[in-house]
């Protein structure tokens, strides 16, 4: 809401400097975004009159305009389509600072040669002056603008640009802001009484109003003005509209807009002659009814939309837009003026459905109440009579089926203190409320208050308490820290686990990344790990195809992040993300499991002058997972797996045992070359994907401490020759079964000339340890023999000599 200071001063004495007023308004909930000095930037811009228009010798589209500036005159090049002889215009002299319409930045105007003609100065558009965005033509000033005077003197003002919150539609008006300013300045609002002459037949004899759907229209008021002449508005009116960011059109439209800005009450003017039977009927539209709105569009109405109708047909969509069939035109002489109250929610629905939102619909949607209708209607009627030369019919029509006496609300000192923490007494409460225009009376520790008609937002005691608190200022409320006992706090194992994972992986050289949870179907299909995956969750109103689906996996965006970084990253890249994936469920919100996913590509270690480079592979990602789970204290095993997104022969499932039951935690492996190709990533890409939910019970388990060995251990090495098909795990399963062997470490794998075809050699280091004594050589030798014997028997292992 743009509020010109000159206009504001019509209703309230502003006793504070404008910056302090702005601060006061902001502190009490009306944020002043900007204080605009219109005219402040208009040095060297003066009012001129176009006295002659001649063709440009070298350009068809351009004209040479001679402008009378009072003491002198200038001839300048002008290309505007609306250049007319006799018009008063804003003329910028060389040296003026104007907004460049293209760059929107202020630039100094210099003398220029335009297609061979010297031009010293310029006729300005509204955009060039920073008044509005309009740049279709030059700004034409009202006729009484005095030639030769500075434009700033004619139409300059200080304008407060105020951000009005959704609960205060009353402040979408100059009068509303004046009420707030009055409370801040300690002054009273003064709204001049409206007096005009009424002549001829009473309005009831000439027009009628009937409200059929009264739940959608609590009040409908109308006045009738005849003998009206449609013409341009006077300068003062145009100037105020421009200052508020509106474009003057003609007197009737301008007056309705002006009154809307003044009171916050939208009005609508009908051409009375076009209303069949002089009737107004407020009724829902017929379902499927067609209607031409005054923008010329054909609209298909539905049965839940409220229309204004005459004796025969719809003439307006209530509160949203009028119709072509009853529009005020240049030939209109009689005006039926509407000031009504419409149900906010219904209007919101209609305007959204039709895609027609306007300053008027925005005010109705916020529930402006029914009380503003009469003062707004009266002032508009007076202005039409005054500026349109019309005659006002006697009386006004006021149909008010929704009339309700305002309910008094009780505010107590006790509740106010309980909520705010400051003990205001009832006199202080009365003082605050009265200053804000709220009628009230103290009754001991209670104050009974009645919200004024323009404050539709005040409904309950808490609303009044806010009024008191903001009147005295939030900054006056002392800071206290919660003094109560701290409520029971429970551990957050999932948050702790995620923190531990993140810290640990970062410590291993992985960069955490964070992607959007919306993705494209294309991306989902690129990494589909299972052809039977459930259909991903789709938005009904996506903004772009890139963000149409909720991700069912973290893989796609992670790989795409890797690919994007490859454009500038050499060497090794290792990334991970912890986040939700979204799995649809029937008749419920989707499941949102938290996942951990990571990728590695390129060199396994950072490049260095000290080391050789080698690309990471399956065993790197396996090592990372072994390290991570060791840190988390979770024992894991690896098993064969079949994940479609991974290399069929280079992948594994991670499993663990929880309460005797085996659970799958996730998968690791090299990304299927096909998938890596789809993302245009070169080289092996290693991936891990783990379910946080599956890890959680294991990570939270407390493991009992094992005593540190008190007796020395004995170390024995063992080199085995086995068929290549025998796995390390098969050997470990046997070796680890012996009680005295506390640790087994594989330290060499060899296949080649030294061993027979189809065989490989594995070398292990066994650590023998007894909890209660130092082992003798004989004891160890005996077990070692048993181990080799079992390996030979079960796996055909021979010892390598």
């Amino acid at each position, binding site marked *: 809401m743009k509020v010109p200071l000159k206009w504001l001063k019509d209703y309230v004495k502003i006793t504070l400097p404008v910056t302090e007023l702005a601060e006061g308004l902001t502190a009490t909930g009306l944020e002043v975004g900007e204080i605009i000095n219109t005219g402040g930037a208009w040095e060297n811009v003066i009012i001129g009159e176009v006295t002659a228009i001649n063709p440009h010798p070298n350009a068809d589209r351009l004209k040479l305009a001679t402008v009378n500036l009072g003491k002198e005159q200038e001839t300048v090049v002008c290309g505007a389509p609306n250049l007319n002889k006799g018009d008063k215009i804003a003329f910028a002299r060389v040296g003026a600072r104007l907004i460049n319409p293209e760059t929107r930045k202020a630039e100094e105007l210099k003398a220029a040669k335009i297609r061979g003609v010297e031009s010293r100065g310029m006729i300005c558009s509204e955009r060039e002056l920073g008044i509005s965005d309009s740049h279709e033509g030059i700004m034409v000033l009202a006729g009484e603008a005095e030639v030769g005077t500075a434009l700033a003197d004619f139409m300059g003002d200080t304008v407060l640009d105020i951000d009005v919150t959704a609960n205060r539609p009353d402040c979408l008006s100059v009068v509303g802001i004046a009420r707030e300013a009055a409370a801040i300045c300690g002054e009273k609002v003064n709204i001049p009484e409206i007096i005009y002459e009424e002549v001829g037949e009473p309005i009831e004899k000439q027009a009628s109003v009937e409200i059929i759907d009264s739940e959608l229209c609590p009040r409908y008021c109308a006045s009738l003005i005849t003998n009206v002449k449609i013409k341009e508005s006077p300068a003062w009116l145009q100037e105020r509209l421009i200052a508020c960011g509106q474009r003057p059109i003609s007197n009737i439209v301008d007056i309705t807009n002006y009154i809307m800005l003044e009171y916050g009450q939208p009005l609508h003017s009908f051409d009375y002659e076009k209303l069949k039977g002089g009737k107004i009927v407020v009724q829902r539209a017929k379902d499927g009814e067609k209607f031409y709105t005054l923008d010329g569009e054909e609209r298909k109405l539905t049965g839940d939309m409220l229309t204004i109708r005459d004796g025969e047909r719809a003439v307006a969509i209530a509160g949203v837009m009028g119709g072509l069939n009853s529009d005020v035109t240049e030939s209109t002489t009689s005006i039926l003026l509407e000031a009504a109250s419409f149900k906010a929610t219904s209007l919101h629905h209609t305007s959204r459905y039709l895609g027609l939102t306007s300053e008027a619909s925005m005010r109705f949607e916020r529930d402006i109440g029914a009380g503003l209708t009469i003062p707004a209607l009266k002032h508009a009627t007076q202005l039409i009579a005054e500026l349109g030369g019309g005659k006002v019919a006697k009386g006004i029509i006021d149909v008010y089926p929704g009339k309700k006496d305002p309910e008094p609300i009780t505010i107590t000192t006790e509740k106010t203190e309980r909520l705010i923490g*400051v003990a205001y007494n009832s006199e202080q409460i009365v003082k605050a409320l009265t200053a804000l225009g709220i009628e009230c009376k103290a009754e001991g520790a209670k104050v009974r208050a009645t919200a004024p008609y323009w404050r539709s937002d005040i409904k*309950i005691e808490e609303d009044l308490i806010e009024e008191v608190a*903001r009147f005295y200022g939030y900054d006056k409320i002392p800071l206290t820290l919660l003094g*109560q006992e701290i*409520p029971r706090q429970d551990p957050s194992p*999932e948050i702790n686990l995620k923190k531990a994972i993140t810290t640990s992986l970062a410590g291993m050289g992985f960069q955490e*990344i*964070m992607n959007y949870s919306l993705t494209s179907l294309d991306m989902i299909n690129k990494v589909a790990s299972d052809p039977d995956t459930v259909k991903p969750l789709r*938005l009904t109103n996506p903004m772009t195809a890139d963000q149409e689906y909720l991700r069912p996996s973290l893989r796609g965006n992670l790989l795409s992040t890797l690919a994007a970084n490859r454009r500038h990253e050499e060497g090794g890249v*290792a990334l991970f993300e912890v986040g939700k994936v979204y799995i649809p469920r029937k008749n419920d919100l989707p499941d949102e499991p938290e996942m951990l996913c990571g990728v590695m590509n390129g060199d396994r270690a950072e490049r260095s002058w000290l080391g050789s480079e080698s690309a990471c592979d399956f065993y790197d990602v396996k090592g990372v997972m072994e390290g991570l789970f060791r840190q988390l204290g979770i024992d894991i095993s690896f098993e064969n797996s079949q994940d479609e997104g991974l290399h069929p022969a280079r992948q594994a499932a991670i499993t663990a045992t929880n309460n005797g039951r085996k659970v799958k935690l996730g998968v690791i492996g090299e990304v299927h070359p096909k998938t890596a190709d789809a993302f245009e990533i070169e080289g092996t890409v290693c991936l891990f994907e783990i379910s946080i939910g599956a890890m959680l019970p294991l990570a939270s388990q407390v493991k009992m401490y094992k005593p540190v060995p008190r007796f020395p251990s004995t170390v024995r090495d063992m080199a085995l020759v086995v068929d290549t098909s025998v796995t390390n795990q098969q050997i470990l399963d046997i070796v680890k079964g012996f009680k005295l062997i506390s640790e087994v470490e594989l330290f060499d794998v060899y296949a080649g000339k030294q061993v027979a075809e189809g065989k490989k050699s594995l070398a292990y280091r066994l650590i023998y340890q007894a909890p209660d004594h130092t082992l003798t050589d004989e004891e160890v030798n005996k077990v070692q023999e048993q181990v080799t014997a079992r390996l030979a028997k079960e796996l055909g292992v021979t010892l390598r000599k």
Partner: protein
Amino acid sequence: MLNEIEKIKTEALKQLGGTDNAKDLEAWRVKYLGKKSPLTQILRGLAGLSIEERKAVGAAANQLKNQLENASTEKETSLREAQLKTEAQKESVDISLPGRPYPAGHVHPITKTINEVSDIFVSMGFQILGGPDVEWDYYNFEALNIPDEHPARDNMSSFWIDAPSGEKGKQLLRTHTTAITARTLENYEPPIRAVEVGKCYRYEATDATHLNIFHHIDGIAVDKGITMGDLKGVLYEFARRYFGGERKVRFRVDYFPFVEPGVEMAIECTVCKGAGCRVCKNSGWLEILGAGMTHPYVLRRGGIDPEEYGSFAFGMGIERLPMLRYGIEDMRLFYNNDLRFLRQF
């Protein structure tokens, strides 16, 4: 005999002075302190001397023996030190060469911020709670005093899910984590102190300071006797700890349907310290969060009697915090995941 001893002394010390390596030192030791050395011979021959002579010669010989042993130890130490010095020079490193790389990854700045902010509130007795990204209309709007057609819905345009409606309305991507507050009030009995963090989604154009997917943190406290003074105190304490001690904080009136009275908190601009700059649009202040006393309607919806319990609630965007702290001007950088950006945190 005493002359003999004096002669040995002069000769031995002179020779020791000229010794400059371990091998010569060892030879010297054998020569002057060994079993066959003249000094040892003298000591062995003491028995054949008269008592008086034995006394004088014995004392002088033993004294010399001690003296030579000490001198030899000293010499040995100084020789070793000199040797180490020479050897160390040969092993010198170029300290300007890069170290052998050990992996060092980084935690995402948004994760760091979430952890830091949560920890501040946890230390004030708040519990961290979560909720679903895909939410029912009821929790995102209805229970928060934002019925259908409420103008506040216009500021929070939603992404709707292609899924059937349930008893609690349509499914949508939550537009604020206040939706979790609605669940918290329903699921917990007072006293309550909880913070809720997560992704939020709004159908909005994206630019340097707006994203359509971003993070929010919300908080709620419910207990007997909670006042707006407590709200101010807790939020001030947060600002003080996150932004640093001397920062001024400002509380102003604002409107959110789920609170009454409503509050907006601003901190003194982190860039210009209140003088006015581009970041704070010359106001000297940066708005960082919205808050207020929980609306009685919202408490009642959560099964809490507003006449018995006081309650405040607050909410703020996460991304803005590291932007202000590190001077980041484009919010999109957080989710572009360019390693050259992420590695800086």
